């Protein structure tokens, strides 16, 4: 039985927050992983999420995708609360959380076709097939799509991970450490792909990474968290300030 839900749709292209993170706090087994974190991700921008290991980046991303519930505060994506209307909110989000994991006994295309069944905006088989072909083409995986996942390199898995995130044509893409383990060519290809998603497809992207040079090249805005608390949210240039690079600025911020 098909269910109907309300979704907020943007009808103007003016700058507006795609995601609004409001005062979220999350404790697990007595340890505070996120403490009153608030920031926004604006439409059409690439926002870098920075922080040392254990800062709470992945916890924040899990909360943004509705995989965990914050203890307090709210996250609004595309006008829907992830906390109260998770299913409606996540239709606006595509994500890779931690490493891209697939069903290893299926081919790349079968993985996408299976996941496409779970998207409300792909109502029939023809639409799903078409969308799977489109996203495979976007990430340049169409030639290897019919091979088993176990034959893929890490770079190909990352690109397929982005393809699965794009299936529902979401407004917001969340990429958690997408360059982890990639070689320099893979990193460059990934960078080009992320920029293409922004410029050609108008996606808003929140990306976490430890590769600060890469973030400096692609991000419009930077959000920094440390020990679960927000320590900076602003433009890339504001963050760099008088420093030589984003890396210098980040290291100084962390050692201050």
């Amino acid at each position, binding site marked *: *039985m*098909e*269910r*109907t*839900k*309300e*979704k*907020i*749709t*943007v*009808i*103007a292209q*003016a700058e*507006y*927050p795609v995601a609004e993170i409001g005062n979220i706090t999350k404790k*697990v087994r007595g340890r505070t992983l996120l403490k009153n974190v608030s920031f926004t991700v604006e439409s059409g921008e690439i926002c870098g999420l920075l922080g040392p290991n254990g800062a709470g980046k992945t916890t924040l991303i*899990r909360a943004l*995708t*509705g*995989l*965990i*519930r914050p203890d307090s505060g709210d996250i609004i994506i595309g*006008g829907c609360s992830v906390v109260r209307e*998770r*299913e*409606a909110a*996540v*239709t606006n*989000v*595509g*994500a890779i*959380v*931690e*490493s891209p*994991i*697939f*069903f290893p*006994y*299926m081919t790349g295309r*079968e*993985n996408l076709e*299976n*996941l496409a*069944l*779970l*998207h*409300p*905006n792909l*109502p029939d088989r023809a639409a799903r097939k078409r969308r799977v072909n489109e996203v495979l083409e976007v990430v340049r995986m169409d030639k290897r799509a019919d091979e088993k996942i176990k034959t893929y390199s890490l770079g190909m898995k990352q690109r397929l991970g982005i393809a*699965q*995130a794009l299936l*529902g044509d979401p407004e917001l893409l969340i990429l958690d450490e997408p360059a982890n383990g990639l070689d320099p060519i893979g990193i460059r290809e990934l960078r080009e792909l992320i920029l293409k998603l922004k410029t050609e497809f108008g996606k808003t992207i929140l990306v976490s990474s430890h590769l600060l040079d890469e973030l400096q090249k692609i991000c419009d805005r930077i959000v920094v968290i440390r020990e679960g608390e927000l320590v900076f949210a602003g433009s890339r240039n504001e963050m760099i300030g008088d420093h030589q690079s984003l890396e210098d600025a980040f290291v100084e911020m962390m050692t201050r």
Partner: protein
Amino acid sequence: MSLLVREQVDGIGFARILEAEWKRLWKRRAVRWMAWTAPVAALVSTKYLFSQNTTLDPGLPEYATAGNVPVLALAEMLITVFSGMMLILAGLSVTEEYRSGQLRMSMLRAVSLPKIMIAKWISCLVFVLIQLALYFLCTVAMGRLAFPDPATYPLFYDAGTVSYAEGLLYNLAYYGLSAVALGVLLAVFFWIAALGRSSTAALGLGIGFLLLSYVLPIMLTYFRPLLEAKVYLRLYFSSLLMIEWEGLAAMLANLHGLQYWNIGILAGYGLLFGGTTVWIWRRRDSFE
């Protein structure tokens, strides 16, 4: 500033979640191998029943005839092959997907975890029910081809004698009750799979549950002289495994009112384990 408008968007129908789960289940090599279980198990059971017949009086209900082969064969295989198959399916479908992070791929979409779990339960059950139906057809065919076909034969627990046609209805009722018992056992395995930290741990806990369900009623037999027959039987058939093994025939004979008792026990297990499994998935952060 944002300029937003509310519009109606169709949600995901449960049928599509079920389709995704079924396709994933069927894609697994282990599951495809398991599809051969019914005919192979039917052959093994038939061979066993042949050897048993050489030592049994033809007047006994245990003596295999064309009519009772499906029931005798299932009684042999229900708690071993079919229960084992479900334990493996629950481990693969729930624990492995959850612990490896594969389930996250589904969870990132607009579907809730309890709905995914219900779809998984239905997919696994449908697979086992197809196997059960195949097993029935194979054993009916083997019974007709290879076993004697007397005018009538006795049922278990003095439930009377039946002709082949009457026996067929009895067999269908027995298989129907087996399907219900398997569905309930699958709910228990899903509960175990939800708690298991790995597929191996879930498998171990599942085997532990089966062993406990076997050992406790056996221990109860030592106290039989102390208990009334009715009380003893009710305690004995509080075990899901014993209902599968001997309780289904006792239900069909309505021995000591066991029909209602066993249905109540099955419903109790189903509600307790099914309910708490859904409750666990509802409460739990998806990936702590």
